[in-house]
C-alpha cells in the first residue's frame, strides 16, 4: 500500500515538473509574450530591452527555468501583471469561492445522481429509465453557460426565488474565517450570513452540477445493471434476504466502485465548468480570475499558477480516489 502511495506521489511530482516546464517554455516563446503584455501600448524598443533584462528574459531558457523553479518551491509565483499583488495571494483569495461552489455542485451531483441511476437501472427499459436517460443526454448536450442564463432568467427575473449573482447580499456583514461563506457563518454564529450565502449558492451549484450529475447517473445505472446480473445477487434473493439488505449490502456496495472513480475524474469537468458558471453568476472565484486574467491583458503569471494548481488538484483528487478504493474494496488490497 505504502509503496503504491509513494509511487503515485513521485508520478505526481514528475507530472507537475513536466507541466511547469512545458508552460514555462511555451509562455516565453510566444509572439507578444509577457514583455508585451506588461508594456502594452507603451512599448518602445528601449523599454522592451530594459524590461526583458529586468525580468531576466535575456538569459538562457534553462537558467530562467531554474530560477523560476527555485522561487516556486518557496511558494513565490511572482506578481500579477494586472494588479501587482503576489500571485499566491490573488489565488488564495479566489480559491475558497470555487471550492465552495464545486463542493456544493458535487453534493448535488452525487446526492441526486446515485439514487437516480439506481432507480433507472431498476426500472430498466420502462419510462422512468427512459426519462432519466433522456435527461442525462440533454444534460451533456446543453452549453452550461446557456443553462446558467436560462435558470437565472427564470428564477431571478420571472420568479424571484434566488439572487441573480454574487456570493452574498451586498451590505451584509460576514466575518471571513475560512473563505467558505456558508461555513464561516456557522463558525461565527452569524447564521443569517450563512443562510444568505447558501441562498446565493444554490443556482450556480445546480448549473455546475449538470454535467457531473448526468455522468454519475449513467455510470451508476450501467454499474447497477452489471451487478444485478451477478450470481451473488441471485443468491441473496434466493435466500430471501430483505430487499433493503440486498440493495445496500450486495448491489450498491459493489456498484458504487466505478462511480467513485468517476467522481474523481469529474474534478476536471468541475474546474472547466466553474469558469463558465462563475462568469454567469459573477461568482468571484478562480473561474472569474481566469476570465479577468485573460480579458484585462494577458496576466501570464496568474494563468501559469492557476494551470499548475488545477493540475495539482486534479491529480491529488484522483490519487485520493484511487487510495479510497483500497478501503472500499477489499479485493484491491489483497492483490
Amino acid at each position: 500500500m505504502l509503496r503504491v502511495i509513494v509511487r503515485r506521489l513521485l508520478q505526481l511530482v514528475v507530472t507537475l515538473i513536466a507541466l511547469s516546464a512545458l508552460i514555462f517554455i511555451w509562455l516565453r516563446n510566444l509572439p507578444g509574450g509577457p514583455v508585451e503584455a506588461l508594456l502594452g501600448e507603451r512599448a518602445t524598443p528601449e523599454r522592451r530591452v530594459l524590461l526583458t533584462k529586468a525580468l531576466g528574459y535575456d538569459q538562457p531558457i534553462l537558467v530562467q527555468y531554474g530560477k523560476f523553479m527555485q522561487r516556486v518551491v518557496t511558494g513565490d509565483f511572482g506578481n500579477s501583471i494586472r494588479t501587482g499583488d503576489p500571485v499566491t495571494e490573488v489565488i488564495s483569495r479566489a480559491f475558497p469561492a470555487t471550492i465552495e461552489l464545486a463542493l456544493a455542485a458535487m453534493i448535488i451531483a452525487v446526492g441526486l445522481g446515485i439514487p437516480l441511476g439506481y432507480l433507472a437501472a431498476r426500472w430498466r427499459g420502462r419510462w422512468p429509465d427512459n426519462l432519466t436517460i433522456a435527461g442525462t443526454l440533454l444534460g451533456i448536450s446543453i452549453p452550461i453557460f446557456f443553462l446558467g442564463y436560462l435558470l437565472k432568467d427564470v428564477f431571478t427575473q420571472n420568479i424571484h426565488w434566488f439572487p441573480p449573482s454574487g456570493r452574498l447580499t451586498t451590505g451584509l456583514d460576514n466575518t471571513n474565517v475560512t473563505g467558505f461563506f456558508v461555513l464561516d457563518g456557522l463558525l461565527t454564529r452569524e447564521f443569517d450570513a450563512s443562510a444568505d450565502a447558501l441562498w446565493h449558492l444554490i443556482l450556480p451549484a445546480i448549473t455546475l452540477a449538470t454535467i457531473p450529475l448526468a455522468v454519475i447517473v449513467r455510470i451508476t445505472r450501467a454499474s447497477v445493471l452489471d451487478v444485478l446480473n451477478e450470481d451473488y445477487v441471485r443468491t441473496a434473493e434466493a435466500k430471501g434476504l430483505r430487499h433493503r439488505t440486498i440493495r445496500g449490502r450486495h448491489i450498491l456496495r459493489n456498484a458504487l466502485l466505478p462511480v467513485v472513480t468517476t467522481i474523481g475524474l469529474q474534478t476536471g469537468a468541475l474546474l472547466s465548468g466553474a469558469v463558465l458558471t462563475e462568469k454567469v453568476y459573477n461568482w468571484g472565484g478562480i473561474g472569474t480570475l481566469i476570465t479577468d486574467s485573460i480579458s484585462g491583458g494577458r496576466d501570464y503569471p496568474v494563468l501559469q499558477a492557476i494551470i499548475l494548481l488545477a493540475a495539482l488538484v486534479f491529480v491529488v483528487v484522483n490519487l485520493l480516489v484511487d487510495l479510497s478504493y483500497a478501503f472500499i474494496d477489499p479485493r484491491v488490497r489483497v492483490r
Partner: protein
Amino acid sequence: MSDPIIQAGTPTPRSGDEKPRPGMSERSIGVLGDRKKARLDELARASASDRGGISLVRDAVRRLRRNPVAIVGAAIVGLFVLVAIFAPLIAPHDPVQRFDELTKNLTVDSIPGGSSEFPLGSDPLGRDFLSRMIHGARQTLFVGVVATLIGLALGVLIGAIAGAFGGWVDVVLMRLTDVMLALPSLLLAITLVAMASRSSQWTVIFAVAIVSVPIFARLLRGSMLAQRESDHVLAARALGVKERNIVLRHMLPNSLTAVIVQATLTFAVAILDAAALSFLGLGDPDINRAEWGLMLGVDGQRYFEVRPELAYYPALAIIVVALGFTLLGEAMREAIDPKNRR
C-alpha cells in the same frame, strides 16, 4: 499497468461518458423470472442470427439499422449536414448583408422581431437572423469537423507510434498525454487561445482540437497494444510480413473503429467547447462569421435581456446537433462492441 489501483485511475474520455458497457442492452434485471425469460430470448436470437463469418463492421451496421437511437442520431446528423451543404440555397438572404428595413428599427434596447420577409427578425447589426442561423450550420460543421479531424490525426499519430513501438517510446508519449489529461479540458483550451497573440477562427479550432488529442491517443494505443498479442498479428509475423506492414496493414486498420466512434462523440464536445470559448470572449473576432457557438456566446449573451431569441435559437441548434452526434456515437459504440454480437 499491472497494478489495479493505477488502472482504476486511468482517465476515461471527457465527453461526459461512461466506459463502454458490454452487453448491457440485452441484460435483464435481478428478478429471477425476468432473467430466465431474457436468457431464452437471447438463445432464440442467437440461433436465429447465426450467420458465421460475417464481418464485425457489417454486423455492427446491421445492428445499427435496427436501433432507433442510432436512426434518430443519424437523421439529426444527416439533416444538419444537408443544411450545411445547401445553406446558400436554403437561406432567404445574404447572412452578412445589413438591411435598411432592419437597421432603421434597431436601438439599444430593441431588436426587430419576425416579419414576413425576415421570419426570425434581425440580429444586433440588422442582418437576417434566419439566414445567419442557416449559414451557421455550415460554419459550425466546419469548426466541428476540422477540430475533430486535427485532434484525430494528432491523436492517431501519437497513439500509433506508442502502440507500435512500445517500450520507452510508449512510456514517454503516454506520460505526455497524462499531463494533458491532468488539465481540465476547457482550461487547457482557454490557455491555448489566451496564449496566441490574437484569436482567430483557427486558434479556436486548434485549441478545441488539442484537447481531444490525448483521448484519441490513449484509445488507439490501448487498441494497438491489444492487437500486438492477437492471433492475426502473430500469423502475419509468422508469414514473414514486414514489421512496418504489420503495423500499417494489420494493427492500425483493426484499431481504428473505436477511434472513429470516439470522433463522433468528440464532434459534440468540440462545438460545445467552441461555444464556451466564444462566451468567454476568446472566440473568433470576425463579426461577419455566422457560427452558432459564436452567435450564442457573443450576441446571445450580450442581448439576452433585450431579445432572448438571439440566444435561444443558436442554443437549441447546438443542443440538437450535439445530441444527434452523441446518440449516433453511443449507438455506434454499442454496436461495435464484440460482446454485443449475436
